[in-house]
């Protein structure tokens, strides 16, 4: 493994982890609203959240490129705040977050739905406020589903390709993730590099799946 390869691996893990953290508050809020709320336009929001899961990733990437590109929101951010999104690491974060959000929302939502509303009502009768009920009753009881969703989202982020190549491009040391690097290296006939990164991917995938199994089993017995 060369220094560049290590950088790519480290970068991929960090951005994937960061994207999981970034989508957590949004994801939980959405999951909660979809599980418990009964409001107008719920099905529309639900569909929009799920869209990145169903659309071709490249199409989602194009939407992000147009939205955050020079002629969209990105131009405004760049002129007013000198804040660059497209073709920087922030674009990678953006792509990974959007692509992995549906996985978190879906699994957290069904976890919230399985929490017995009676328990929440009892906590309220004992004087707990809405936030307290959420953090001390709903979230702990739904924790397995939430953590499962986070792991799924993280794993999805690790392997994201289509949206990332559109909004961030392949720039070693800046926006290159493992998936992009494997593709580019094969394109350029550098199969040895690609195979080393492939090895890393297998190890990462193994650790992710194995640790989630381990974690979920422990929760069951405790």
């Amino acid at each position, binding site marked *: 493994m060369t220094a560049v390869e290590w950088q790519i691996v480290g970068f991929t893990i960090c951005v994937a982890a960061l994207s999981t953290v970034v989508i957590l508050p949004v994801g939980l809020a959405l999951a909660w609203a979809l599980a418990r709320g009964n409001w107008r336009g719920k099905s529309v929001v639900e569909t929009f959240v799920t869209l990145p899961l169903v659309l071709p990733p490249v199409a989602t990437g194009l939407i992000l490129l147009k939205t955050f590109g020079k002629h969209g929101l990105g131009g405004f951010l760049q002129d007013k705040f000198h804040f660059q999104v497209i073709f920087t690491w922030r674009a990678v974060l953006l792509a990974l977050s959007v692509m992995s959000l549906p996985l978190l929302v879906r699994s957290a939502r069904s976890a919230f739905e399985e929490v017995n509303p009676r328990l929440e009502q009892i906590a309220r009768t004992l004087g707990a406020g809405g936030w307290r009920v959420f953090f001390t009753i709903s979230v702990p009881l739904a924790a397995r589903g939430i953590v499962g969703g986070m792991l799924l989202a993280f794993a999805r982020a690790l392997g994201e390709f289509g949206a990332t190549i559109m909004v961030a491009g392949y720039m070693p040391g*800046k926006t290159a993730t493992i998936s992009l690097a494997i593709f580019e290296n094969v*394109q350029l006939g550098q199969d040895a590099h690609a195979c080393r990164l492939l090895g890393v991917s297998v190890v990462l995938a193994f650790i992710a799946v194995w640790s989630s199994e381990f974690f979920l089993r422990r929760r069951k017995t405790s």
Partner: protein
Amino acid sequence: MKAILKTVPLLTCSLAILAWPLRAAEVTVFAAASLTDALKAIAANYQKQSGDKIAFNFGASSTLARQIEEGAPADIFFSADEAQMNRLERGNLIDPATRKNLLGNSLVVVVPGDSMLRIQSASDLTNADVKKIALADPRAVPAGVYARAWLEKLQLWPAVESKVIPTENVRAALAAVASGNVDAGIVYKTDAAISRNVRIAYAIPRAEGPDIRYPIALVKGSPQPGAAKKFLNYLSSEEAGQVFAQYGFLLRP
């Protein structure tokens, strides 16, 4: 909940690592894939002398131009053809005062190193034993556009077109030939020189082939205009010219 709390140190670590490379000032050069090896060698020399860091984004000039149009943070654009540079100039995205044609190049037909194929003229590409020809995408990527212009001039393009395997950039065409997955490829002379797994079957005479020019310019709104200007001047220096020549590029006065 515990699991959520556990992610906090992870967040801090990620933020720290991600923020790190943003501090160092560096010049970002978007350059044609064919310049990869020569520019890396030149930048290594330059970094030692000046202390400025040079970061590269190599790819098809058409892809790079598109990225700059979308607002990618670039300081210098070094294109393999004038069409892509013109496109950025029309969009008011480069500084025309800094634009100049720095290098020239020529095209060659390459075959896999162990191939028995003999190509003595352009029309041999239409022979039945040449089934697949790798080419940088002839609709946009300079190397492919040049190759297509050459074959069109000889009125051979219609016969060759169906054999073309378009690739993302010229280095990908070279790799396709080196791997033996295609029968032949058309790449720059400078690309053929860096691969041990390909053989030059036919060097296209300069009079027959298109005039290949590599324009360079400063990108407007460059994040590091001062340092970028310095590196741009260095690329026109005799010292850099020697390295370009070593890699087989033609120097344009």
